[in-house]
């Protein structure tokens, strides 16, 4: 990339960021702000998902589990601790669980991990429900935290920028190279001196931490949370589609996949509420068939074809 391109790209990114930051201050109406929050939410989740599952090719179906942990922790502790403290606790719990899952399954073949992640949301949901039924005797909590949508928006924006920044740095680093090698051929990776287990674990914990924080930050958006809402498997699903559509190898890929799909799902859930899940499933399958390498991969193929013609 030439100097000029880099400068232009940098300027473009800065202005985009400035606009995005200032947007909530406009009196455009709550609907747009709400949409913005949803866009940011899925942008962060999709990017976090792709950070781990993209390079390692370990498909994680556990997004809902970590998101839910974040959201539920806030629901439980939100009124009794300062906000920063609650976020920290939520983060701690998410990291602890990610470590547990990672240490048990990442040393083994990818299939075990997928299966475990598949059931993780269900597992955490059941444990939380059991706790609520037996210990607190009340399933479902009301959330009365005084945080405005704007503040949620800005927190998510900050989170998105941080995640993208971390990922960008990581890709250039040795860790990023290690991940690329692991994703290509894990046996080769171990034989060139890469500690694959530790690398995968670190990435997984990082990804899970971001998802947990996202859930925590978003919790005040609901006035009422119960385990069914917090650990809804639909989230895992939607995040997956978005990351796959956008492409998991490019930095802005997942974000590029999140934006159109969030809008699409908005339209679908409003107009076809009864068939939403069916349409979700069909969309997903269509993406697997027709855009297996994501839009980014499609573009890449088109460009390569153009070059060779």
């Amino acid at each position, binding site marked *: 990339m030439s100097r000029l391109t880099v400068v232009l790209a940098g300027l473009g990114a800065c202005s985009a960021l400035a606009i995005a930051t200032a947007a909530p201050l406009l009196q455009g109406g709550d609907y747009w702000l709400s949409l913005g929050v949803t866009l940011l939410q899925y942008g962060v989740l999709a990017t976090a998902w792709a950070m781990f599952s993209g390079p390692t090719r370990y498909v994680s179906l556990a997004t809902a589990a970590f998101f839910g942990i974040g959201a539920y922790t806030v629901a439980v502790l939100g009124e009794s601790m300062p906000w920063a403290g609650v976020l920290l606790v939520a983060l701690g719990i998410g990291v602890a669980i990610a470590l547990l899952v990672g240490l048990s*399954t990442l040393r083994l073949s990818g299939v075990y991990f997928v*299966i475990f992640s598949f059931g993780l949301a269900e597992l955490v949901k059941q444990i939380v429900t059991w706790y609520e039924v037996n210990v607190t005797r009340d399933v479902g909590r009301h959330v009365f935290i005084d945080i405005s949508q704007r503040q949620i928006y800005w927190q998510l924006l900050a989170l998105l920028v941080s995640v993208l920044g971390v990922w960008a740095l990581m890709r250039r680093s040795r860790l990023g190279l290690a991940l690329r090698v692991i994703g290509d051929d894990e046996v080769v990776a171990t034989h060139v001196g890469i500690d694959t287990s530790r690398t995968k674990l670190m990435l997984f914990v990082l990804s899970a931490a971001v998802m947990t924080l996202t859930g925590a930050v978003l919790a005040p958006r609901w006035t009422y949370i119960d385990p069914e809402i917090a650990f809804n498997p639909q989230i895992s699903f939607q995040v997956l589609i978005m990351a796959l559509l956008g492409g998991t190898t490019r930095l802005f890929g997942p974000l590029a996949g999140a934006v159109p799909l969030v809008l699409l799902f908005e339209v679908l859930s409003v107009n076809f509420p009864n068939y939403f899940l*069916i349409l979700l499933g069909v969309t997903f*399958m269509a993406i697997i068939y027709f855009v297996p390498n994501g839009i980014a991969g499609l573009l890449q193929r088109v460009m390569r074809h153009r070059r060779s013609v």
Partner: protein
Amino acid sequence: MVLTDVLVGGLTLGGLYALTALGLTVQYGVARILNLAYGQFLIAAAFGAFVLATRFGLSPIITLFLALPVGFALQWTVYQLLLMPLVRRTGAGPALETDSILLTFGLSFLVLGICVAAFGGDLYSYSYLAYPVDILGSKVSANRLVAMVFAFAMKAVLYLLLTRTRLGTAVRAVAVSPCFAPLVGIDVRAASAIAFGIGGALLAASGVLISMFLPFSASLGVVFAMKALIVVIMGGAGNLMGCLVAGLLLGFVETLVASYVDPGLTVAANFTLFLLVLLLRPTGLFGKTVR
């Protein structure tokens, strides 16, 4: 006696888990595709039995026999229509595993959507043989007993099918050695499709049997898929005997936990067992490495 309760309960549940997982292990062992939509189709079969029982007064036993060919045909079609393009595209290499997991994950949502659109999210059940029977001093629901008997009967039939028929042997050959099976004239793709069909028959049967005594809802698909997966992995992928033992083990552990600890912690018990097996014997109780 409480112990007999647990014994019979564990046997029933375990027998059913084993039956369910057998279908999945046949699919995975032969076609090398992990069908995450398995549980959702099972629930769909349960809904089918419900409709036939309540709308048309059809005994679930008859539905059971209807479900076998329907389940077979459905999963066979799923393989041919939805999964074959992936097999062709990836050349049945390691990418197939990832792509098929993703596709079946999507398929599970599709089927979930259909169930929810038709039935909503509530729990459903119907009454069938809901009277207690006295077994060795403990009272067991007749419907559970019938389910257990049929589950074991079907497993025996499956065993005979796979070991005493040419078709079954061809299917097993592909499970053992997909590379070399073609050399003895076995069409691997056709065998995989048939294996999927067999899995479909078993899951349909399981769904019907479960509907006889367990209240179910659309969202339970994930739970069943998960338990089936756990049993398959614990028993060793593609290993029929391992599946049987692992299924019974899971059923017993779950019944014990439900009786002596807390019925709300069954999933936690499943996962703990799964974790233990993974940590101690990652190739499954009877060992066949998952690629």
